[in-house]
């Protein structure tokens, strides 16, 4: 087999889709399953160009329903496998990811959000938050990392494989069309050289040894006969999820300690929120920014701490309140008023957040 795809540390200037492909290679992903959809196409494009050089594989399926299920199948066979999609493709993958939740299959899905509902635009949005966190007929036993830069796309794609395999929870990296298509600089690195060990994979189906003799027999099911059986299984899943959630939760905060207005934003919009805080602080306004990196599980305790001095919370997102809905549920009981600056399917700049906050008084 060829050398390691990424050696040492090196500055790159590429699109986000190319970053995802390199990160998956660096994480020793063995196979990608996929079906083309804009703005995710170039993840596949780069993967198919790079993968053969490093002994990795690719399977193009007939649609996203199949891409989701083949990813599940690949993981069951013990492969570090992933897929990438967007918009209506994400919709079609919900059935397979619901299965992954039920059977604790460590799939990794990269989502580059586009405008919706339906075909919407091929460009950009943050309208796949609810679906990526809670899609399918399940309980949202998933990990969703919302990235805001090329560096984070690289870091979190690598991390997603480890989170998935360590905790056996389906894991999503939630990007967007801007991150997919733009070029900016980042440092790529060999995870091992930074002390990041890839969590080993194992065969979930077809493990070696005689079941019941050499090892515990596995009984992989997503169908149950009685209410009580299912209730027990889902209860165990819930218990596991909430137990590991505090280890998984991630966030960033900016000037929240004395902030009277806390801007909550995720993904690429954090860049605008950070810019707005900087500008408003220069004008003497007590404004801070709380950014959940994991939208699921949500960093509830950290957010509660960040809003201790807040008189108002402003949720800023390129969707009609999908993050706001999560925030409201998570800080239920707080009496701080929550308002929203919602721009479904539209990019948001620092200048417009500043203007909005100053104008509303």
């Amino acid at each position, binding site marked *: 087999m060829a050398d390691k795809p990424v050696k040492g540390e090196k500055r790159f200037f590429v699109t986000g889709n190319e970053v995802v492909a390199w990160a998956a290679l660096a994480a020793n992903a063995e196979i990608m399953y996929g079906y083309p959809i804009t*703005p995710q196409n170039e993840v596949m494009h780069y993967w198919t160009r790079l993968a053969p050089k490093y002994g990795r594989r690719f399977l193009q399926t007939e649609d996203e329903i199949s891409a989701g299920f083949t990813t599940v199948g690949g993981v069951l066979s013990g492969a570090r496998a992933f897929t990438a999609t967007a918009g209506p493709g994400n919709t079609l993958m919900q059935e397979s990811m619901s299965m992954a939740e039920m059977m604790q299959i460590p799939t990794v899905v990269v989502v580059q959000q586009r405008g919706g509902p339906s075909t919407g635009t091929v*460009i950009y949005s943050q309208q796949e938050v609810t679906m990526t966190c809670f899609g399918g007929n399940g309980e949202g036993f998933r990990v969703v990392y919302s990235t805001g830069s090329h560096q984070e796309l690289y870091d979190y794609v690598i991390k997603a494989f480890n989170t998935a395999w360590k905790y056996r929870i389906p894991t999503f990296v939630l990007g967007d069309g801007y991150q997919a298509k733009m070029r900016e600089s980042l440092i790529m690195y060999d995870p091992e050289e930074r002390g990041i060990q890839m969590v080993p994979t194992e065969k979930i189906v077809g493990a070696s040894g005689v079941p019941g003799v050499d090892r515990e027999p596995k009984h992989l099911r997503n169908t149950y006969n009685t209410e009580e059986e299912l209730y027990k299984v889902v209860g165990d899943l819930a218990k596991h999820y909430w137990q590991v959630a505090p280890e998984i939760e991630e966030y960033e905060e900016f000037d929240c300690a004395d902030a009277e207005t806390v801007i909550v934003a995720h993904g690429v*919009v954090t860049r605008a929120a950070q810019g707005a805080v900087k500008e408003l602080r220069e004008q003497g306004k007590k404004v801070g920014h709380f950014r959940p990196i994991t939208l699921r599980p949500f960093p509830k305790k950290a957010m509660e701490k960040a809003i201790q001095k807040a008189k108002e919370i402003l949720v800023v997102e390129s969707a009609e309140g999908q993050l706001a809905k999560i925030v409201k549920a998570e800080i239920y009981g707080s009496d701080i008023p929550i308002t929203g600056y919602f721009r479904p399917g539209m990019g948001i700049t620092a200048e417009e957040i500043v203007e909005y906050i100053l104008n509303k008084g």
Partner: protein
Amino acid sequence: MAREYKIALAGEGGQGVQSVASIIVEAANDKGREALYIPNFGVEQRGGVSIAFIQIADEKIGSPKFKIADIVVALSDRSVRRTAQYVDHRTTFVYDASIKGVEDDLPKNAAKIYAIPAIEVAKTELHPRVFNIIIMGAVIEATKVIDIDSAKEAIEKKLGYKFEQDPKLRELNFKALERGVELVRQVTN
């Protein structure tokens, strides 16, 4: 050089605005500066106006798109109309002198408006193929985001393999770059 520059380059498909944008940002990145480039990539890119949004700065850059550009370069009548939204009183607006019928559509609020005869120069003095390199020269002269030697290095990096086969192409491209610089100097001085 220290300040942050926001540039919107707009033209018809085939005028090469996206390739110019990518050469400029790569040159800036090679010099260790922060650059961010995003094309508009809606379905309209097939047969519509093609816009490149570029930002170059010394620190990490914020939102990928912006509301107001420091400089707008519009290379067709539709591009002039389409990019008026990125202009305010701080913006330098550059358009091609050969575009007809846009006098009333030029953004009246722009800080400065310059018409440069890039299409004409490409056709009569050089070659239509290097039109976008003339535009690149115009952009770097108007913004100073990179110097001309860095621009030449970046062009060499991108097109060097073609220059190997035909060294005259190198000369033609570098000449186009220099002419672009001159066209802006003529209108700004």
